[in-house]
């Protein structure tokens, strides 16, 4: 090939081509196929489900309608609620533990390297290994529940992974209402911040939107119901055990991210603050935390997408059939490979993809943008 071919980029493109083609098929084409499958009745007729060339009928959004409002798919709705609660607490736990550990390790205690290694090693393990060990630790009559007896206290009696207890229950059929109120709050917040920034027009538009949404939610919105029947979903306490194991595995990772961020903060800044009479607490809350905001955001996004996809940990810890620790990623697997409900499995896959894309795409965009500027 001539030099000119390389200069013009054709050569480079040809080198990239195999990878591009593979990813085009394995990522984009397969996503398209999944989306299409989710719009068919693949699996509704058991005779067709496993046929070599199944005859598929296009049924539009019917699978999605069933998942969100159908009588039999309450399990999916509980899984969605579970995964959102799980994500919230998982991110909260990893960020707070990770930040504390990072600040402490950054103080250069004796044995710094050893501490860092101990906190980070779970990240190198498989979720299946973590799940296996914690499954044993969380046996209702052993492990963690026996810990208090070592210091003479009565044993704990929490049924970690099998508890049926649920808290913070709400009626799924009122979901549109909650969304409207949430959006109204968001708009109200936007209006306030626009007003502070002196953008009156923007503030006005946001305020009117907030008002309209709020009025709709409290007025006609109340009669709009997603389901014909009340259906209560909430946070399953059985997830606490999964959360402990997940945070055990990922807190060290978060610590490593924060440590990298802390290294980027010049020492002079802290010293200057100390000279100005700031306390250590003020330095942390007023200077270091705000400077770490980009790291926090990155960590939230990375942890968030891990959490939405969580599958192997739950599988290994509680098994695929433990109702109270079910998540959509697991339900997709069971629906597809055990129930042969391919179209519905595909629909759950698409919903997961949308959830992840909503947080990842803006992140990818901003990361690539920032690089362009620098």
């Amino acid at each position, binding site marked *: 090939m001539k030099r000119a071919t390389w200069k013009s980029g054709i050569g480079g493109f040809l080198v990239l081509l195999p990878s591009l083609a593979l990813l085009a098929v*394995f*990522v984009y084409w397969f996503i398209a*196929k999944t989306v299409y499958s989710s719009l068919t009745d693949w699996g509704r007729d058991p005779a067709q489900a496993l046929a070599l060339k199944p005859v598929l009928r296009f049924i539009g959004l019917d699978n999605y309608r069933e998942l969100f409002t159908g009588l039999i798919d309450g399990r999916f709705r509980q899984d969605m609620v579970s995964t959102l609660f799980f994500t919230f607490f998982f991110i909260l736990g990893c960020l707070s533990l990770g930040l504390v550990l990072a600040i*402490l390790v950054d103080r250069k205690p004796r044995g710094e390297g050893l501490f860092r290694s101990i906190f980070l090693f779970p990240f190198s*393990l498989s979720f299946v290994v973590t799940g296996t060990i914690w499954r044993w630790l969380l046996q209702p009559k052993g492990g963690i529940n026996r810990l208090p007896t070592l210091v003479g206290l009565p044993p704990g009696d929490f049924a970690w992974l099998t508890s049926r207890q649920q808290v913070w229950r709400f009626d799924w059929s009122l979901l549109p209402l909650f969304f409207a109120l949430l959006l109204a709050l968001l708009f109200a917040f936007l209006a306030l911040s626009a007003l502070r920034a002196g953008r009156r027009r923007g503030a006005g538009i946001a305020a009117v939107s907030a008002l309209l949404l709020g009025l709709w939610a409290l007025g006609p919105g109340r009669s709009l119901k997603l389901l014909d029947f009340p259906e209560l979903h909430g946070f399953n306490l059985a997830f606490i055990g999964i959360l402990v194991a997940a945070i055990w595995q990922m807190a060290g990772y978060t610590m490593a*991210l924060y440590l990298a961020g802390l290294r980027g903060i010049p020492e002079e800044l802290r010293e200057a603050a100390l000279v100005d009479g700031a306390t250590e607490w003020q330095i942390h809350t007023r200077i270091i935390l705000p400077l770490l905001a980009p790291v926090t955001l990155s960590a939230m996004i990375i942890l968030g997408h891990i959490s939405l996809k969580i599958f*192997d940990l739950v*599988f290994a810890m509680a098994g695929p059939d433990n109702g109270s620790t079910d998540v959509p990623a697991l339900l997709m697997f069971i629906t597809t490979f055990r129930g042969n409900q391919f179209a519905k499995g595909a629909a759950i896959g698409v919903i997961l*993809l949308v959830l992840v894309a909503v947080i990842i795409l803006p992140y990818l965009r901003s990361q690539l943008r920032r690089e362009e500027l620098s």
Partner: protein
Amino acid sequence: MRGRTRGRARASQPWPTYPVLAAATCFFLLPVYMMLVTALKQPIDINLDTAWSLPASLNWSSFSQALAAFLPKLRNSFVLAISATAISALLGSLNGYVLSKWAFPGSRALFAFMLFGMFIPYQAILIPLFGFIKAIGLYGSIWGLVLVHVVYGLPITTLIFRNYYAEIPDSLVESTQIDGAGFFGIYRWVVFPLSMPAFVVVVIWQFTQIWNEFLFAVSLSNPGSQPITVALAQLSGGEAVKWNLPMAGALLAALPTLLVYVLFGKYFIRGLLAGSVKG
């Protein structure tokens, strides 16, 4: 760290450093302790009431039993992780070389196009993937899994190499070019010899990820080609398990990646940062 002294770090702390570190250490090592004592007990001595106590006598036979049962699965995992890692690292290196040193109009967009594959929940491609692997006759074969891990590893390997090569001065590439070296000549004589640190990062990262992976492994393998993660999940998921075997098995499954982590911790952290904080 430059200019950071122990003296300052010890002055006026809001929290006590060592007690908190000690408590955290306990939390992180508790499962390790439990795994070891359970694996080393006689099966008959394992019961919930005395789960925390040390074994009365050391019993190593659980490890040999687990090893005997897991040996074929460990072999599968090694074949899978080593071949998929090698191929995805080589492809990623070439891709990164093009994207950083031979960028062309639209190459940034193509890079973004490749990166997205890193984040998707694999549930969104699992059904067509399953059909595809079956159609090309690789279902139940370790090579089907190799193919899958190569493809879905491409985004991260390309990303790490691209960012690494961006640090190599363009002038170095240009001067070699004047000397008459072409695309592959420059790669062979300039870029590749400088790539070792990036290869270490990528190899460690990919090996760990592929070794630990479960969703593809459980969907695309059969008992003959099962990687270790699937075998472990099945062993510990069975009813009325004797816990010495799953614990010994967990240790065996963890050992390779743990060893990589202990030996190459620095590079491991670099891979971890590359996978999150980009640009």
